[in-house]
């Protein structure tokens, strides 16, 4: 009988705080079990040899030594960087142009164009990779090879040669994401006051001057955001290489996540896979830090200006 009385006497503030903790607890409990614990355990596991069944065996730095002496691991890092840049940089430029065109006062059917440009983004990456797998087929009937044959270029083995593999995967990334970034840039452009453009027009600025002097500087925060998400996103590239190259995951196209997935779930080498995950973690942390640094610097110079 003592306890309920106490609860009733509990101040409103306390009961509010109690319900607050209850309301947010599901996130923290789920995150502790399926998020935080696995992350910490990854560090632990990277020092053990483990095939998923037999007891874990402590091996010290051996897993790291192993992956750092594996040329395929270096290839996976290099591929991830190269495909990331090849897929992202042209995509951001194209998205900026498309967004500028969509934002133009001159056009009709804006919504139709917007919908069409955006459509690839709702397609699953698996579907994208399968479709482009046929477009970039090694045989002469593949669309890319057929197209090149019109210019007398002999068929390319798209999924087996150094640059073609990267071009094919980067194209998939480009195609799926360009519309998404266009929409984000467009949303940013629509928040730029129209008076700025009108003033520029009166001063006789050309379209390209308007882009360079008004649109780009005003969009800077959004461009930074897009570059940031695209960079982090390209480090998680996995589906495209797996579908395009099959589980063999040739060295020309393997990415870091694909490398660690293959180590764990094809070779049953969970220790080295965890070590690769740790390396990936540090690469992403470094990139995030660099990005924050740049963002801060830009923000500061704006304040000074």
């Amino acid at each position, binding site marked *: 009988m003592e306890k309920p009385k106490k609860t009733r006497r509990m101040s409103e503030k306390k009961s509010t705080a109690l319900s607050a903790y209850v309301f947010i607890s599901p996130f923290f409990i789920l995150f502790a079990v399926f998020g935080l614990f696995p992350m910490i355990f*990854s560090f632990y596991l990277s020092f053990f040899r483990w095939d998923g069944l037999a007891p874990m065996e402590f091996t010290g730095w051996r897993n790291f030594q192993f992956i750092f002496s594996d040329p395929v691991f270096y290839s996976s890092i290099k591929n991830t960087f190269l495909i990331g840049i090849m897929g992202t940089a042209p995509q951001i430029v194209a998205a900026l142009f498309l967004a500028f065109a969509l934002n133009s006062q001159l*056009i009709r059917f804006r919504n139709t164009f917007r919908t069409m440009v955006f459509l690839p983004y709702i*397609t699953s990456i698996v579907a994208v990779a399968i479709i482009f797998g*046929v477009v970039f087929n090694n045989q002469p009937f593949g669309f890319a090879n057929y197209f090149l044959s019109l210019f007398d270029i002999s068929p390319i083995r798209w999924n087996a040669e150094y640059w073609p593999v990267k071009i094919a995967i980067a194209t998939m990334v480009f195609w799926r994401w360009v519309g998404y970034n266009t929409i984000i840039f467009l949303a940013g452009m629509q928040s730029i006051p129209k008076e700025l453009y009108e003033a520029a027009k009166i001063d006789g600025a050309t379209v390209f001057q308007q882009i360079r002097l008004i649109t780009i500087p005003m969009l800077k925060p959004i461009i930074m955001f897009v570059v940031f998400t695209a960079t982090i996103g390209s480090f998680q590239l996995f589906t495209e290489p797996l579908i395009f190259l099959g589980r063999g995951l040739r060295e020309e196209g393997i990415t870091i996540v694909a490398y660690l997935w293959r180590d*764990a779930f094809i070779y049953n080498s969970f220790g080295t896979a965890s070590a690769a995950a740790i390396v990936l973690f540090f690469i992403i942390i470094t990139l995030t830090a660099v990005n924050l640094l740049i963002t801060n610097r830009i923000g500061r110079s704006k304040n000074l200006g």
Partner: protein
Amino acid sequence: MAQVKKETGSSKFSVKKLFVYLLLLFGSLASLFPFYYMFVMATRLNREINQVPPPFTPGADLVNNFLKVLDSIDFFGAMWNSFVVSFSVTIGTLFLCSLAGYTFAKLEFKGKNVLFVMILVTMMVPPQLGLIPQYYIITTLGWLNELKAVIIPGLINAFGIFWMRQYMKEGLPGEIIEAAKIDGCSNFRIYWNIAVPMTLPAFATLGIIVFMHVWNDFLWPLVVLRDPSVHTLQVALRALNDARQMDYGMIMSGTFWATVPLIIVFLLFNRLFIESLSEGAVKS
């Protein structure tokens, strides 16, 4: 506004306008061509696809190819699994994120700011870092090859909490909550009877984003849903594509029919869809 209307409606030719239209036309064609190409191949037999030049117009084997898909994978079973997983995660996420978002927006408690920053920090960590131990946990729990292996971890959504908090902060007047409190409503009642009905647009937005992400997710379902009977559409498509004998007509048919539902849903709600996603990105 008047000027804008005049310009939009004018049919006067200008080089600038031509350039803008050409750019958009090219962009749209580049977007649509792979879809068209997929459809063409879904209607063709493998030997037609293997010809040079390849076919660029639809053929007659749309149904035929799909029947072959049904022979090699449990297409509708996979679609049902995708639906169950996406629907459960969406409903669960909407509930948990709105409840937590409401808490962070409107309730006062010790450690509020620290806890909220912690949630934001979890967004920065790459999800692949914990992949292997996560798999280990799922095996230990005995959830391997069960849909809840995707559903339960899928409920963690820091972005959703952030999103709902923003919305509840702006969209819920403090006076209404105060009034309800004076009337003796519990915090949960206020959330359920006042906060939820007043922020329904935010639910629609977040719901769309979550549903699409879960529907298209691949890596995690691939790891924990190994048995064909629990495959989601994406995993099943991969199995179809991995078959030793490459029948492109069949593979494209499966891909086509797996993509069509999402395209229909998208075209029905396209404005809401696009605005949700751009709003979501610009806000964060």
